[in-house]
């Protein structure tokens, strides 16, 4: 009887293997593609060389784009952390008619097509004469990052904030700011961190909004890659893609570490 269950389970996992392979395949081929000697993208690569990486770093445009993407992502994460955490705190433990709608509205940027957000953002910033600057992109990305931080902090609040702690701190005379600093912040810190990491990855990689809001001095790395992929597919693209991948893996590991510490808390 237990054997039949084990057999069923084996079939289940066996069927999953191709799907998992499907999921991982793209990530697995990027780095090898970058390590090619030729000037053309090919897989499998003929010779191993790191010239693509050096080409990428030495190209002033690509380098500038990389730095810009970091700046944009930093701004986006800063904004998203503040708005997302504040919103999660405000909605925590509070029940009112329409709470579902408010939560849905906060989560909307994930679901609404980016083009629409990009178009609207473009028109608003054009009107404000802020087109062509990285700040506009950063602001819009901030809105994109907010839902991720919101969910993450919300989970932290539910899992790690003991209501009795707040109550006892208050009864001992702690004011609002003290409670925030000593009771609430330690509880939500992992959530904010995890959300920030995810938000960073989301912003760094975002194409559509950055495409619409680009300017001569505000071309993020993904936009540059997007154009390159369509018109000049050199190994440089693969090199920057590898760095992207590295970033994602680092973020994934960092998030896992942060979350594991939260579970332990």
């Amino acid at each position: 009887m237990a054997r039949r269950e084990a057999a069923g389970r084996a079939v289940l996992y066996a069927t999953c293997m191709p799907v998992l392979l499907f999921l991982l395949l793209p990530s697995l081929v990027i780095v090898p593609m970058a390590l090619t000697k030729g000037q053309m993208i090919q897989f499998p690569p003929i010779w191993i060389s790191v010239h693509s990486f050096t080409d990428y770093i030495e190209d002033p445009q690509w380098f500038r784009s990389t730095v810009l993407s970091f700046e944009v992502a930093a701004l986006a994460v800063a904004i998203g952390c503040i708005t997302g955490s504040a919103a999660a705190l405000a909605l925590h433990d509070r029940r009112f008619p329409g709470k579902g709608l408010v939560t849905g509205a906060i989560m909307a940027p994930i679901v609404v097509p980016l083009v629409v957000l990009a178009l609207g953002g473009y028109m608003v910033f054009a009107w404000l004469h802020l087109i062509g600057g990285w700040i506009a992109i950063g602001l819009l990305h901030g809105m994109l990052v907010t839902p991720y931080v919101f969910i993450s902090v919300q989970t932290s609040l539910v899992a790690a904030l003991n209501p009795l702690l707040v109550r006892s701190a208050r009864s001992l005379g702690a004011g609002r700011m003290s409670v925030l600093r000593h009771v609430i912040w330690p509880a939500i810190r992992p959530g904010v961190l995890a959300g920030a990491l995810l938000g960073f990855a989301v912003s760094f990689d975002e194409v559509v909004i950055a495409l619409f809001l680009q300017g001569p001095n505000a071309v993020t790395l993904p936009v540059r890659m997007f154009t390159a992929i369509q018109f000049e597919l050199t190994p440089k693209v693969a090199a920057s893609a590898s760095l992207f991948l590295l970033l994602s893996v680092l973020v994934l590991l960092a998030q896992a570490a942060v979350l594991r510490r939260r579970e332990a808390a």
Partner: protein
Amino acid sequence: MAVRALTAPSFKRSPAARRSPAWLLAPVALLYGALALLPIGVILRLGLSDGGAPLRTVLRSPLLLRAAENTVVIGLLTTVVAVLLGTLLAVALWRAGPTLRSLLWACILLPFWTGVLIKNFAWASLLQDNGVVNAMLLALGATDHPLTLLHTRFAVIVGMVHYVLPYAVFPIFTSLRAIDPLLERAARSLGARPRRVVWLVILPLIIPGLSNAALLVFIVACGFFITPVILGAPSDMMVANLIDYYVHDLVDFNAAAALSILILAAIAVLIVLQQMLPKEGQHGTA
């Protein structure tokens, strides 16, 4: 007893003193107000200007018909495949022990966090005529000349399913986890063979999760921009690409705005319809 009454916490609703102040909602309201509501307002104004002329232009355009048809077809195909594969993965996650589960999560989340651009770029390389997939097919003898896989609708769907699969897994896994573990035992003790347990007990209880997953995936799939450009042919243009066309090629902002209104309206209708579906889950609601 009196002491107990004094210190007994009531967790149902915190008194106002314990809750965080409501003005904390201000930052997000400000941000969204400026960057979402305001733009949507502008979009509505532009799209409905001239007594709705841009709307009519867009609605009469044959391009819209093409793009809409592509979007719906590709969206539906992607949704069906993603929900099927997503259910498979969700069930595997559900049944797995802790180590296997972490491994599976890692496999599912890595592509989730790898950027859409990277993924499409990788698929483009994999599916090109001298790419890995063709190389494997030739090696296996399944075909004697490279198949055209890139710049086809097939490639678009591959790319999209790859992107949305994690979105499908989350809601389905959540609803599986919510099922009382004793229900399976109860059903078996009452004479149900394992297959009947799945059909009669488990499946009905995950229907809300499945419908949530399908809605989420469909909406996300319909908004796709990058994938059709990199992996598809010009004939696979989707509505998001059409907006881009209006903005960057025709420089007709009003029409772009009108199209955006249509898209938002369609999404709103879908969400409302899905909320109206009967939601019989573990706890009576989804």
